[in-house]
């Protein structure tokens, strides 16, 4: 993990410049910074505040209001569990439970080893496939507790560097 003092801010300047340093694009700018850095480092927010001439407190208001942003570094793998109504009635709360137990983190948290960030999202619009979870932008539908355990194992065993194939 980079120390905040080491984060290069040229990219922040480029992003701000691409929006002509116009403060009405603050949210887009923060989104682009998130794509670049995987979260919103403090240094970046300070730079944005300066360049856009928006008080830092207001930049923070925006950065903490919207769910797309995180002030803390996020994990390598982003798991989004759909909590839409259709997925809810198809039993997604139990899927979420299982993921939380397997990874030992609660929704909204990142695992200590920075491998996984688990978040809930309110409907990804793939209701026919409910319950749905999205990992790194890949949709996985018709989840069951068994399936999700196997799916997570693929990511955790890859990390361990072992070439274990699932025998089941």
């Amino acid at each position, binding site marked *: 993990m980079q120390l905040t003092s080491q984060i290069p801010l040229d990219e922040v300047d480029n992003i701000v410049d691409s929006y002509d340093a116009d403060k009405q694009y603050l*949210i887009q700018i923060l989104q682009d910074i998130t794509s670049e850095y995987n979260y919103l480092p403090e240094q970046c927010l300070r730079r944005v505040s300066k360049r856009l001439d928006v008080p830092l407190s207001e930049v923070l208001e*925006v950065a903490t209001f919207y769910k797309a*942003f995180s002030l803390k570094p996020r994990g390598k793998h982003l798991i989004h569990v759909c909590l839409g109504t*259709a997925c809810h009635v198809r039993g997604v709360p139990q899927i979420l439970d299982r993921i939380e137990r397997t990874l030992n983190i609660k929704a909204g948290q990142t695992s200590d080893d920075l491998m996984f960030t688990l978040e809930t999202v309110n*409907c990804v*619009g*793939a209701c026919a496939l*409910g319950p749905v979870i999205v990992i790194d932008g890949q*949709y996985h539908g018709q989840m*069951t507790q068994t399936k999700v355990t196997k799916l997570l194992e693929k990511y955790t065993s890859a990390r361990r560097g072992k070439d274990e194939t699932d025998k089941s």
Partner: protein
Amino acid sequence: MKLTSPEELEQLRTSILDAIDPDKLSITICSGTGCLACGCEALVRAFEKELKEKEIDKKVDIKTTGCHGFCERGPITVIRPKGIFYQKVEPEDVEEIISKTIISNRIVERLLYVDPATGKQITYEKDVPFYALQTRLILGSNGFINPENMDDYFAIGGYSALSRALFQMKPEQVITEVINSKLRGRGGGGFPTGWKWDSCRSAESEDGTRYVICNADEGDPGAYMDRSVLEGNPHSILEGMTIGAYAVGSNIGFIYVRNEYPLAVKNVNAAISRARSYGLLGQNILGSGFDFDIEVSRGGGAFVCGESTALMASLEGRVGRPRAKYVHTVQKGLHDKPSNLNNVETWANVPLIINKGAQWYSKIGTEGSKGTKIFSLVGKINNTGLVEVPMGMTLREIIYDIGGGIPGNKEFKAVQTGGPSGGCIPEHLMDLPVDFDELTKVGSMMGSGGMIVMDEDTCMVDVARYFLSFLKDESCGKCIPCTEGIKRMLEILDSICKGQGKEGDIEFLEEISQSIMNSALCALGTTAPNPVLSTIKYFRDEYEAHIRDKTCSAGVCKDLFEYFIDDELCTGCGRCRKECPTNAISGDKKEPHNIDMKECMKCGACFSLCRFNAVRKGSVEGVRS
């Protein structure tokens, strides 16, 4: 190649249509988000590979389209021009489809849809009851357009409405036409669109700036209609917005898309670039002298930004906190200028109305609600997907005739409409026509079009709790009735669902609800009590059973039921024992198994995987005795 006159547009259209070989085979593959999630990309690659191998890739087209709507049956492949309908297609099926259908003109029967009502196989798309019973004025185009190919949109008449409006109608005439169509907003508010346009046009603007905005922040969980229109037919929105901009006198438009729809953002942005290159957006559109351009803005992940003032605050780079609407946004909206905001589906209806006329349009639907409405029919339903029906069709027809009823022959319990602002409609009201006013009369609302079907295994108290939990998470936090009121209502519902409910809780919920409805700052707050009030109204007995008997008969609230294994049905296969995360299940092979209630954490894994339905739910008292 900029089109600089209506004549040039029509010439282009004619040349595109002339170039189409009506007999050329086209493999149309649904690539909406749902089918993408089912792996249709691999399907596309498989088709491309196979066609090349058979050396017929020049003779057969592959067209990837937006969502066809029959999501339950995806991945969907339609072989045109005949319209042969294949469902649940896998890459492994591609070889057979090519060799049989494409080359030898035969049907792959196992991929056909079987109508459960008749048991018959259906060959053609138009005969599939799911589609046949709909009126797919808007969604129907999705199956014929590759959203990345403008020629497809021209081929189905795209931009003819814009051409007509710009060159044959004055702005005021456009507004009159929309007023006469009686189109009402499709985002949930149901406000007459034409009148909104009229107010925006007449609103004062010092420097003449006016904005048109498309609300694509579709936040109602379970609703994805707007997403499918944006992904599958983005030009229809651009055309609608341009017509609207011309009508109200705006030169700048915004499409605000929620953050969770990356494909929609991509497709709309690409469509805008293409439209610009054709001179259909930007300066001097079609040589008319009218300038209009559109910018796409992504949301940051906040349901409240679907509310118009919060959306506009977000467009200004600020937090999405609503403000009082005592001065309407048509008067003072984005940057304090007159702003006309409409939902995606509302905009999509505009080219239709201009092309076919208000009279034609107002013949569809009911007295108070004209046109069609797209619903996302999801939840405990056989035919999950998007359905477009004329206003006035009954819930029963939608859920049973089009939706195919409840899976597993379970009993229907309720249908939830209107998202977190709506309510649940029980069985005895199923013959209600779907109509803005009718739905409101029974304590629900049309909302954006989410239609969540619930069955006997759904706990209605849990549904109310679910919606409150959703709203608590999404509340902006500014006003006390919503922020604190919803939080406390949720506390009461949590305790009811945990078996700690008390006499008087229902009345207390009603009391808090009334105060919130009378005092909250925005519609998120004022409508938040609706799911609670409508479930109390129609399912009070479930609340009472939770409170008095500490029982959840649907078997959802973990503390109010127990799992047990029926030893008459259990075969002792041991699958549940292996999967149980707390090792609460014991039993010898081929012997009936047992669940230790003390260890059981109610995760439900055993219940969902038992092939013999031996794992059952019972009341706490009943099972323990």
